[in-house]
Structure formats: structure tokens, C-alpha cells
């Protein structure tokens, strides 16, 4: 699992990365009440705002962590967005992206580096 400075995690399987937000981000946001997911088939570029999440406190964007194509979204979050708070690294995954260039992930942080980043 890799981590970004935008508090997202990525788990690569072949050329498909599952993406979610970290436990630290979920904790800081508070209980999620709304999520707007991207369209499956959408081609996105790194740093595009592709997901809107709203917590009890505020609205935030989730940015595409790298270039690629959205191949699956976690529809269960539409009716149950608090899954992101309850299991951010598991059932609270948000979308899967077909990665255009897997070397984009090489500069991302490992867990230990991310933990140091947020400490």
C-alpha cells in the first residue's frame, strides 16, 4: 500500500489501483454524510478533483492521485458514507483506477513514511 500527501492510499493489483482515504484523513474529517463518486469510464489526470465528500463539518474534494481511467466505484458508499470512517483502508475504498503509468507510484510514501508525515 502506498500513501500520498493528499492523505489517500493506493493498493496496486496488476494495473488497477484501489484508492481510499487514510484513517488519519477520515478521523480529521469526521463522520461522512455524503459522497459524490466519479463516472466509471472517466479518464482523469493527476490532481483532478474527482470525488466530493462531505462530513458533518465541511465539504472536501478528493483528487486523482495519478493519471488513468476510473474502472469501478464503491456504490455502497452512496447510501452508507460512514463506511469510510469505520473501515477507511478496507470496505471504505472509494474508486478503482486503471493506472496509465505505474511508475507514478514509485514516488509515493510507504506506510512508515506516511506515519512520519502526519506525526
Amino acid at each position, binding site marked *: 500500500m502506498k500513501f500520498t500527501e493528499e492523505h489517500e492510499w493506493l493498493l496496486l493489483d496488476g494495473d488497477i489501483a484501489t484508492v481510499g482515504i487514510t484513517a488519519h484523513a477520515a478521523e480529521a474529517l469526521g463522520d461522512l454524510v455524503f459522497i459524490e463518486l466519479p463516472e466509471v469510464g472517466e479518464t482523469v489526470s493527476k490532481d483532478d478533483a474527482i470525488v*466530493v465528500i462531505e462530513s*458533518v463539518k465541511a465539504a472536501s474534494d478528493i483528487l486523482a492521485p495519478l493519471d488513468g481511467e476510473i474502472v469501478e466505484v464503491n456504490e455502497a458508499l452512496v447510501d452508507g458514507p460512514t463506511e469510510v470512517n469505520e473501515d477507511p483502508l478496507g470496505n471504505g475504498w472509494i474508486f478503482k483506477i486503471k493506472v496509465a503509468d505505474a511508475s507514478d507510484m514509485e514516488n509515493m510514501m510507504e506506510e512508515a513514511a506516511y506515519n512520519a508525515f502526519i506525526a
Partner: protein
Amino acid sequence: MTDLLKTALTELHQELGAKLVPFAGYEMPVQYPMGVLGEHNHTRTEAGLFDVSHMGQVILRPKNGTLRDAALALETLIPQDVADLEEDRQRYGFFTNDTGGILDDLMFANRGDHLFLVVNAACKEQDIAHMQAHLSDVCELTVITDRALIALQGPKAEAALETLIPGVAAMKFMDVLTASYNGAEFWISRSGYTGEDGYEISLPNSVAEDFTRALLNHEDVAPIGIGARDSLRLEGGLCLYGNDIDETTSPIEAALIWAIQKVRRTDGARAGGFPGAEQILDHITNGAERKRVGLRPDGRAPMRAGTVIFADETTTTPLGTVTSGGFGPTVGGPISMAYLTKSSAAKDTTVFAEVRGKRMPAIVCALPFTPANFKR
């Protein structure tokens, strides 16, 4: 956060694992480990304990000993019936300005030989100066600084408080009671700001922590932060000063006409005589151009404060603006309060809110969003 004020309960909040944030100059708990949604639901189904000690507590005592004279003096600043308020009863009111806007909203109680007022934290300095300037000929004004204020709200509040202070169960909504607990004097009212039954309790700082711990020891009582306080009062259709009412909103626009008793309206025995009376009484007679209403967004995206409302998907002239909005846990969806033009404020009107560049439909609805559970 060095300049932030603390309440008598700040250390207890920390011990309970609260996340503290700056709020109206105080360091206040926004949430506890239960989280905002859980705290909201706990208050609706069990009993929630709130520290509202940041609010201003003020006593107005008549210099001549005649309470009615203090009441009539206060009536020069607020459009409520103070003089006829019975002993041990409380009422909701608001200070108005010369243009008919609202300077602050407040609770006031007749406590026999004096009036007891609770005002908003962010406005209290200004309210106190306002009263000193206009009431000091008739009233001795005392700002209470040695007492905490807590609220216990929810369907289990009565049973929980009765175990510590026998007699409170017999109180009705807006009744006021003086009670004693371990020798300390408590000033209790059956009121609150969540839409639930419950109590607001003024108690000496010296016993505040002990008493709060005793309440929290009750299995049904949990501490609740200002995050859930906001979603609870929004579902209850209750105004947040600074968001839903301010110096530019008349009480009639704000749909608070119910809080102006007939005796202060045109043809009443003590009609007018408060700041902005001409404007406010005209709004009562002729109606206002805009009105505070409830909105139920279609879909799940919350429409928050500042969101602009339009009649359809293309027009450029707005109908109004959202003043409070978010997710209503009990409603199970997004809810907002907005000011809309008179012609668009009728129940069941479909309007469009611009959220992140997209026009999203919403339906105008009656307030509150959740029925009030007061003990009348």
C-alpha cells in the same frame, strides 16, 4: 489557543477525550469520541449533556424593588411581553435595533424579585453594554461570572435529572425552579435548544464538575459537543444567531412572529415601544418581502450556509440564500434553512440551489424538520 477562555468544565471535557475548538472566544468541545452523528442520535433517543457555560448569564433587579418596573424597562429593548410573564416562567425573546433587525436572541425568566437572562456568547459584551446604557436608571444589572450553565436534553433527561434533583419531573416546558444540590443553589428551567424535552441548569462553578460527573454517571447520559448541538438545533428549526438571524433580518422575515405576544403588537395594550417597532409592526400587518423557510434538497448533497437559491436551472436573479444547512441525522438526509422571496416561500415550491456550479432541486418545507418533543 492561549487567549481562549475556559469554562468550569474544560478540564473534564479534556478528560472525556473531547476535541476542543475555539468558539465565541472559548475553548469548547466540538465532539467527544462518540462522534457527531452518534452524539446527535444519543440526544434524540437518550439524554445528552451540553456545556453552554460560554453563554452570558445576567440578572436585572429593579432598583425600587418592583419587578414590574424592571420588566417594563426590558420591554423598551425587546418586543416581548415581559411584564405579564408569571413568576417562575421563562420566555424566548430578542433585542431589536432601530431598523427592526435582531441584535441577539435570548431567554428571560421571572425569578420573583429579579429577571434572569441568558444571552449568546458571541454577543454578550455588546448585550450587556446595551442594557447598561438603556436600563441602568431602573435596573441594577449583574453579570454572573461565577456560575456554569449546562443543558440536559432528550427523552431520558427528565428521569436522569430527577434522580439527582427530585421535583424537576413536575416542571412543564419553560417553567423555572430554584433547587439545591449539596447545599449549592441551582437555577433550572425546562427548556433547551435541540427540539427535545430537557433542562438548562445554572449552577455555581465550584460544584459544576462534581454535578456534571454525577449526571454522566447515569447510564443514559452522554456528553455532547457543539457539532451535534448544531445539527440538533437545525433539525429543530431553531435559529443560530449570526447565521439565520442578525442585524439585517426582521423577526417577521425570520418567522419568529410567534415570539411577539399580542400585547406588544398594533392594538395591544403595550403596542410598540421597542427599537424598530415601526418596521416590525408594519411587517406584521403587511407582510415581509422575504421569509425564513425550511428546504429539503432532492438527493443527498448538503446545501450549506451561503448557497444561493434560484427559481429554475437557468435564471440569474437569485430568490435567496441558505443561512444554515447540513446533514440531518434524524431526518436521514440533507436539510437547510434559507431566506426566500415571499412568492417562492410557499410550502412544496421547488427551487434550485447552486452547489459546486450545479443547480440542484430542493423543496420548500415547514419548520421544524423533526417534531418538537417539549413537555407542555
